[in-house]
């Protein structure tokens, strides 16, 4: 979330799409209701189903799953056509005025410039800004071609020009705004109707309502966009979210109370897991993992440290220019004294990554036999899928599986999943260890919520039986491995032997000690040259501003620096004061970065530093103090005078919000373009010859099958959670099981009538991968749709059941996993599978 849960109460307009917070985040959704109650805010819900969120909406539109970019692109088009844009914000806080290089081509035919069909990748060098100065006027400026590099200087890495050509009048035909306008000129209300199935008049109603916050140039009102995995789980998921971000930039809603683009996230600590690099492609604090091309530390740091790229009259903080400090402090934390300047701070202790090791690749490679072992802690990989049967078959080929869990789950019992005969079981040679872990109430530690709040929790009870704390189990396994390397030697033992382990009780590392290590400390006496403030060696650092790239600081995760300082554990703070009434709660827990609650909050003020809306004052420029001050921590260089025109988006090299995403930021285009899901009942109405996202690659094992309508798969199926259950967890909880005891398939009344299906009948849903059996829930809440003149049905299936659970164990359940149906294709940027919008057949079982 750019903003936060409570902040939703400050909004005037909500668009909830790709998410169902009333069901999946009920206690956060109260703030949407508060906005309605206290501000008469309006709520627009766009979803394939009339959900319980929709039941509280002022306007509900049923959309075809996977057509979100067409809808949002249509709203962008509407906003531009009807002059519902935040002109001053757009010109000053986004790259709308930046001029794009000649040679860049928009995807009228479905392809941007630079596509290579053989490798299914783009050469993205044309997706760049033009170098130069003021390119004003309408004529393309050839004078602004890049100057030759200084003699003797090494050739620059492909990057953005330090001085970008610009036209603040936004008239230059190749300026970002004009390209944006051109790109979405194709997304007319008629085209939106053809693609999404939303009738034109309804679409116009929604577009008018949402953009009404910028009616007549008013800047006071604010709109928010709220989404969840309904956007993420597509082969163009990242680009859907980008479209929303662009719309919010266009309307001037980012950085403002009641605004923003707000990812709900689905679990208690996946925000924290992403922050802490629980995924292959980053290191803690979103540092990019080293690649084999990074032959040494300097090369790596140069590659991952951006340089400012901006119009000459503007300033850009480019905070990521500090990346080397974060990276070296991270290496010092891991490898301590073994990380020295002479050995590049143990840079080569880190594995180098140059291909995709994400979730579906992992299972694919296990299926192919190259991944031999797996440790799964609190992660039910079989049930989560996609293509659960493939994951089961993959595990059959592994040597060993270690499961840390609190309940018996599908993954630990893959070897006796339904359909496996006693004979087959004998041939499954996987050794499975199932280790009983501790539940949430038995552990302390912190979770990071989707509003980036870190909050410490306390243990209430000891773990039952012979259960152990998760951290103890991992520590004990690691220390045993280390002991073996000490005794026997082995392949490249250096990182294992030199890993710092400064915990009081080595076998039982306290989470509090780990939290302090994450925050970081001084490894030498440090003095701030400006203020002369000194931090003694061994003291906790007050924040990431103190980090050094010379090995004198340690910090496990720079964005969490400042969370456990000499003042103690700030994650455990419980201050309930909220003087501004904006729901900022500065003294409750701690939020990254630097306890800022709303990101980019400099953009809540006009260029002169005055809040756009005086009733919702977050931060502002104080001329007397010559500082940015406010109710929130300014997300900005505190002493940057407005007249210096530093961009409010300090984490981008440009200093401004990106309507156009240059170079390598995205694999599939600098602007979002509508593509069909990999399995779609229709061709892409914009460019039938390029229906799907061109860079999406299908996996190629025998298990990876994909359907077409020609094969008879012509019903769109989408998957989701119910409010009564949590993932694959509460099927072990009788209280929740009685609320929804059985699996079901939500089927439109009209489709059920066609197929002779009545409510509660057993139905069979078949995809190209497998089938699923459950009861029919015949409902009026999903309506038949007309897509480009063709009648299309959608059905929906909740995910919550499997083959281990209360009902399952009693034999009352169909004992199948929904994710047997889902395909293994992924988004090319975030690598999230396309769980939403695949094709199925439906019949009475």
């Amino acid at each position, binding site marked *: 979330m750019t903003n936060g849960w409570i902040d939703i109460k400050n909004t005037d307009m909500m668009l909830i799409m790709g998410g169902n917070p009333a*069901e999946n985040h009920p206690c956060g959704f109260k703030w949407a209701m*508060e906005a309605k109650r206290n501000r008469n805010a309006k709520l627009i819900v766009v979803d394939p189903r009339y959900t*319980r969120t929709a*039941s509280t909406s002022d306007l509900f539109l049923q959309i075809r799953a996977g057509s979100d970019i067409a809808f949002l692109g249509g709203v962008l088009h509407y906003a531009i056509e009807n002059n519902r844009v935040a002109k001053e914000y757009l010109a000053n806080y986004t790259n709308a005025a930046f001029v794009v290089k000649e040679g860049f081509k928009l995807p009228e035919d479905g392809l941007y410039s630079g596509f290579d069909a053989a490798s299914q990748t783009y050469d993205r060098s044309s997706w760049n800004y033009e170098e130069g100065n003021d390119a004003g006027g309408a004529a393309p400026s050839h004078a602004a071609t890049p100057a030759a590099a200084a003699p003797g200087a090494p050739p620059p890495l492909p990057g953005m020009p330090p001085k970008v050509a610009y036209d603040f009048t936004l008239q230059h035909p190749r300026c970002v705004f004009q390209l944006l306008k051109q790109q979405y000129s194709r997304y007319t209300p008629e085209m939106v109707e053809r693609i999404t199935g939303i009738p034109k008049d309804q679409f116009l109603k929604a577009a008018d309502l949402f953009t009404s916050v910028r009616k007549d140039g008013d800047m006071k009102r604010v709109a928010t966009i709220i989404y969840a995995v309904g956007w993420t789980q597509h082969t163009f998921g990242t680009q859907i979210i980008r479209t929303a971000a662009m719309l919010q930039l266009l309307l001037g809603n980012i950085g403002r109370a009641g605004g923003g683009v707000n990812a709900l996230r689905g679990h208690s600590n996946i925000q924290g897991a992403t922050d802490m690099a629980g995924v292959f492609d980053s290191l803690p604090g979103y540092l990019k993992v080293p690649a084999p091309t990074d032959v040494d530390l300097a090369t790596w740091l140069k590659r991952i440290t951006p340089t400012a790229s901006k119009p000459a009259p503007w300033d850009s903080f480019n905070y990521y220019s500090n990346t080397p400090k974060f990276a070296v402090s991270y290496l010092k934390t891991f490898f301590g004294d073994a990380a020295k300047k002479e050995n590049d701070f143990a840079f080569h202790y880190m594995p180098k990554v140059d291909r995709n090791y994400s979730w579906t690749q992992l299972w694919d490679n296990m299926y192919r036999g190259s991944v031999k072992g797996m440790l799964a802690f609190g992660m039910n990989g079989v049930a989560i899928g996609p293509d659960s049967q493939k994951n089961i078959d993959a595990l059959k080929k592994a040597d060993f599986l270690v499961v840390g869990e609190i309940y018996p789950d599908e993954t630990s019992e893959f070897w006796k999943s339904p359909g496996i005969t006693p004979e087959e079981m004998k041939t499954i040679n996987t050794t499975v260890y199932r280790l009983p872990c501790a539940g949430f109430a038995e552990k302390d530690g912190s979770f990071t919520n989707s509003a980036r709040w870190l909050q410490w929790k306390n243990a209430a009870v000891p773990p039952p039986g012979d259960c152990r704390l998760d951290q103890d189990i991992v520590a004990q396994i690691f220390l045993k491995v280390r002991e073996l390397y000490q005794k026997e030697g082995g392949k490249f033992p250096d990182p294992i032997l030199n890993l710092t382990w400064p915990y009081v009780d080595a076998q039982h590392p306290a989470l509090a000690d780990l939290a302090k290590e994450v925050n970081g400390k001084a490894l030498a006496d440090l003095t701030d040259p400006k203020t002369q403030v000194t931090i003694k060696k061994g003291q906790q650092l007050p924040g990431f501003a103190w980090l050094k790239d010379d090995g004198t600081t340690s910090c496990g995760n720079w964005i969490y620096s400042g969370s456990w300082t000499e003042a103690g554990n700030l994650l455990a703070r419980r201050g309930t004061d909220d003087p501004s009434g904006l729901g900022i709660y500065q003294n409750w827990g701690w939020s990254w970065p630097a306890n800022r609650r709303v990101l980019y909050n400099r953009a809540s003020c006009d260029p002169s530093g005055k809040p756009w809306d005086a009733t919702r004052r977050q931060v502002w420029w104080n001329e007397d103090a010559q500082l940015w001050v406010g109710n929130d921590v300014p997300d900005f260089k505190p002493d940057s005078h407005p007249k210096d025109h530093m961009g409010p988006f300090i984490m981008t090299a440009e200093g401004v919000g990106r309507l156009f995403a240059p170079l390598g930021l995205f694999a599939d285009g600098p602007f979002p373009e509508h593509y069909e899901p990999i399995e779609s009942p229709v061709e892409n109405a914009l460019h039938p010859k390029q229906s799907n996202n061109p860079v999406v690659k299908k996996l190629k094992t025998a298990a990876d099958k994909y359907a077409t309508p020609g094969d008879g798969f012509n019903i769109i199926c989408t998957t989701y959670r119910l409010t009564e259950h949590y993932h694959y967890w509460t099927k072990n909880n009788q*209280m929740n099981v009685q609320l929804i*005891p059985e699996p079901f398939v939500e089927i439109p009344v009209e489709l059920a009538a066609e197929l002779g299906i009545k409510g509660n009948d057993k139905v069979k849903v078949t995809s190209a991968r497998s089938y699923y059996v459950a009861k029919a829930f015949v409902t*009026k809440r999903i309506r038949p749709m007309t897509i480009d003149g063709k009648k299309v049905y959608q059905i929906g299936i909740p995910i919550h059941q499997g083959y281990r659970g209360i009902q399952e164990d009693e034999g009352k359940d169909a004992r199948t996993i929904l994710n047997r149906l889902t395909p293994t294709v992924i988004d090319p940027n975030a690598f999230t599978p396309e769980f939403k919008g695949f094709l199925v057949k439906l019949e009475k079982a």
Partner: protein
Amino acid sequence: MSQATLAIKRISGHAGPAPGEGVERDYQVCKLVDTTTCIGCKACEVACLEWNGYEFTDTVFDNSYQTMPETTWKYWNLIKFNEHENSDGTISLLMRKDQCMHCADPGCLAACPADGAIVQYTNGIVDFQQQNCIGCGYCVSGCPFDIPKFNPATKKMFKCTLCVDRVSEGLEPACIKSCPTGCLHFGTKEDMTDLAEKRATQLRENFGFEKAGVYDPAGVGGTGVIYVLHDATNPEAYGGLPKDPHIPWVVKFWKGPAKWIGNLAMLGGILRVTVHYLRFGPKIVDGSKHENGGQP
């Protein structure tokens, strides 16, 4: 053992007014259910079951998110779902929390022949006292909302207590506390009525619900649970909320004279014995040995 007690203003099956009635001032408590912000999440159902500690119920999926048709003796709080087709062809999902309405003029209490089996506290909560309940089920016929439910094991009647054990300690009921969206609210009847009217006005003026209004039926003297409805002219659409609930005339007829006679003279006691003997004597045999059987 608890020393907490709560004063009573009405007693079932009792001749004459409740002792001390009207001596102390008290405020009426009230639950407000704003159906326009109900998301049918069932948190109130779970909170109710958790707090009251009842055993789980075996349920079956029945083409709805609602997995049982009505409240039961151990399931006092149920969201009723209705996929409602609007006049313009669009769909609404109407969801309403169903539970005891805690009527100001409780039909159950009026119908109950057992002395002290149903009481109304001075704060307005209507509560069953299972140790005095004879399991006759007459409260069912007195209730226009079909709330009292029979536990066949203990042969006693049960229903929502409005968490009287919490309320008497200054806490809000469990369902109210849990409600994620604030669709549920708790306070004095005066405050809740005020809040409800304001919300209904807001719905009419700002959200286009021209028929929005408050459900606080006069036929039972008003209720301790009031609803804000998008369409107050059609309460039946909300899981069968009766449009104009009344205490059945039969109950009124024979309870009315009984009271009158009781107040007129000491015949009340005699009449009570007579009524008991004639109408309920046989049932007492069934239920009388379950002094503490109604646990909890």
